[in-house]
């Protein structure tokens, strides 16, 4: 929400009103995000119900280890985010910067691991499209599983990229000394966004990776 620009924008009566407005704005935005991913989860539920075996088989090809590592990475990045917010409340600008950088590094690590996984799937011909090949279970429904895998994790990754960009913007402001105990709502609202993206992954992980882990 770029509206938190100057200390007090003209349309607001005071800083408290401004801060409340931007927080509520972000929450509203997150609700729209819930519904955006909700469409994918609904589709997933329908086909998971229709083709349990193939979804299981598709899930088995995913790398549980990399997935788990990524889950941990994201959870850690959520911790660095709350620490950044915490330090912002206390006015410790340098610590804020450090935690933001840490968050961005963790985010980048997540994306890097994701890319490695995508690379594997590409080599295994598991990317839906003309070259798709799947042994072991019915190919057609299995393709659906990979369709969901790529679209869901892909949309999630796009959100991560946006999040990293937002952190870069917050970092730039913070370095210019614009993050103060009185006025740090952009740290907070970008934080809210980041946590949301984390939660999406918390659900994607079991639904995609852990389905077939026991076999």
């Amino acid at each position, binding site marked *: 929400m*770029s509206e938190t620009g100057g200390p007090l924008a003209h349309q607001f009566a005071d800083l408290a009103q401004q801060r409340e407005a931007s927080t509520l704005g972000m929450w509203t935005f997150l609700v729209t995000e819930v519904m955006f991913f909700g469409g994918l989860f609904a589709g997933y539920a329908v086909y998971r119900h229709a083709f349990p075996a193939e979804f299981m088989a598709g899930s088995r090809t995913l790398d549980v280890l990399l997935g788990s590592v990524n889950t941990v990475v994201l959870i850690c990045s959520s911790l660095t985010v709350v620490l950044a917010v915490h330090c912002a409340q206390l006015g410790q600008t340098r610590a804020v910067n450090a935690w933001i950088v840490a968050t961005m590094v963790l985010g980048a690590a997540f994306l890097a691991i994701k890319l490695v996984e995508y690379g594997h799937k590409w080599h295994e011909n598991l990317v839906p499209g003309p070259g798709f090949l799947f042994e072991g279970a019915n190919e057609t429904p299995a393709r659906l599983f990979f369709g969901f895998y790529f679209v869901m994790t892909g949309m999630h990754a796009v959100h991560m990229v946006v999040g990293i960009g937002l952190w870069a913007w917050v970092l730039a402001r913070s370095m210019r000394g614009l993050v103060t105990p009185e006025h740090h709502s952009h740290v907070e609202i970008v934080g809210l966004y980041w946590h949301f993206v984390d939660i999406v992954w918390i659900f994607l992980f079991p639904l995609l990776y852990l389905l077939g882990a026991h076999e």
Partner: protein
Amino acid sequence: MTSQSPSPAPAVHARRENYLTAGYGVKSWLLTTDHKRIALLYLISITLFFMIGGFFAVLMRLELITPAGDLVKAETYNKLFTMHGVIMVFFFLIPSIPATLGNFLVPMMIGAKDLAFPRLNLLSWYLFVLGGVITLWAVISGGVDTGWTFYTPYSSVYANTHVIATALGIFIAGFSSILTGLNFIVTIHKMRAPGLRWSRLPLFIWAMYATSLVITLGTPVLAITIVLVALERLFQIGIFDPALGGDPVLFQHLFWFYSHPAVYIMVLPSMGVVSEIVAAFTRKRPFGYGFIAGSSLAIAVLGFLVWGHHMFVSGQSVYAGLVFSLLSYLVAIPSAVKVFNWTATLYKGSVSLQTPMLYALGFIGLFTIGGLTGLFLACMGLDVHVHDTYFVVAHFHYIMVGGAVMGYLGGIHYWWPKISGRLYPEFLAKLSALILFIGFNLTFFPQFVLGYLGMPRRYHAYADEFAVLNVMSTAGASILGAGYLLPLAYLLWSLKYSKAAEPNPWQATGLEWKTPSPPPKDNFEQTPVVTHESYDYLEGADVATEAQVV
């Protein structure tokens, strides 16, 4: 609402600085963050889209004069109704009232200087324009022929027209719409003037709030659905393609999850406008204020539970159909509440039939007919017959053109003095309202008959026995088209030649009437403090002299 702010400036002050004169030049408009200027930017853009959509409608009606498909080719006709539907829905009616009157009035009615996020508001307009330009590019470079509903697998596999470009345009416009809704929600929650409790809010604000809820909760699902169709076209994922194991009916679920609530995005704002107009032109507090306000929220919430009524014969399970049908009937009740309360407001009022009121009464009548025919469609046994016939076409034009567009025009007339600082010519305005009413009914009433006779929609050529009714419909459409050109002409004319408007030409209540016409840049000289409920038309208060209004 009475406010303790200084008494309104007298009309002589119309010459002094206002939002229109606060800056000149293209840049002062294209980079403005003033909600009132953004409202005007939207007004111009959507009028343009309405003309384009209307132009396609005229071509369709011309084709349908004769049963044979002789004027345009089938391919062309299919593109015409698709682009007509896409443009009218996504680029005209959904943004219509929220982005123009809503943008202009929401801050003013709640005593705020602007929306909570003015730059986001401007961004929303740019997104709208970008989405519109992409869609228009698709139209010009060959068009798209899937119907506005984009049913799969036709749209995802078989159509070879510009599906992806159109989808992208709608996707972007969707974000514009989400940003507007988000802005309104936050503004209404956080920016109300001191003393303006929820129970004192104007009904228009209630309607905008309900609309915004629907926008923010529904539009994202449309966005992801469109993305899936595009991905399906690009990568053959198979989610909606039966040849690849997918289910085309899933697309319909996701599409209607948004698009049924979207019909309430289109009509709720008009309902808000009508509530304001009916109060002002009867000089009465609306009968059952709480019920009208609450029914807006009820419609917004219940509206999300009925989408399957578009899919009774689609292969959806009978049991799901039963649930959706039942819930569709429940959502009719809050609409009924509104209609009855408006009518009751007229009772013992001081009714003045000026142009905005004519539109409002027109809305009530036509919306009632449109809504009642919705009951036919929600009835499973009947829908088997009338589904995808002209009965449906007539139903939604009655609500969207007879209802929503009439409400929009009523609102434009009602607030025109506030927006432009000028009065519109009353006689011409009444005349064109009458022309529109007649033209409208002549266009769309025969379509109910056609529908029950069994004429399917989206037909470029049809059986001979439908000819006479189609000719009537086309005749009506010509009257309707001409009727739309009139307001365009005289409203533009009034900008230069008409009398300057006073702050409160209708003697209405509401904060927007307490500030000069046109309002100053920050809306109010001083933040108003509200001490009364809205619509305190006191009994015995001086009755407006109609002579004041030309």
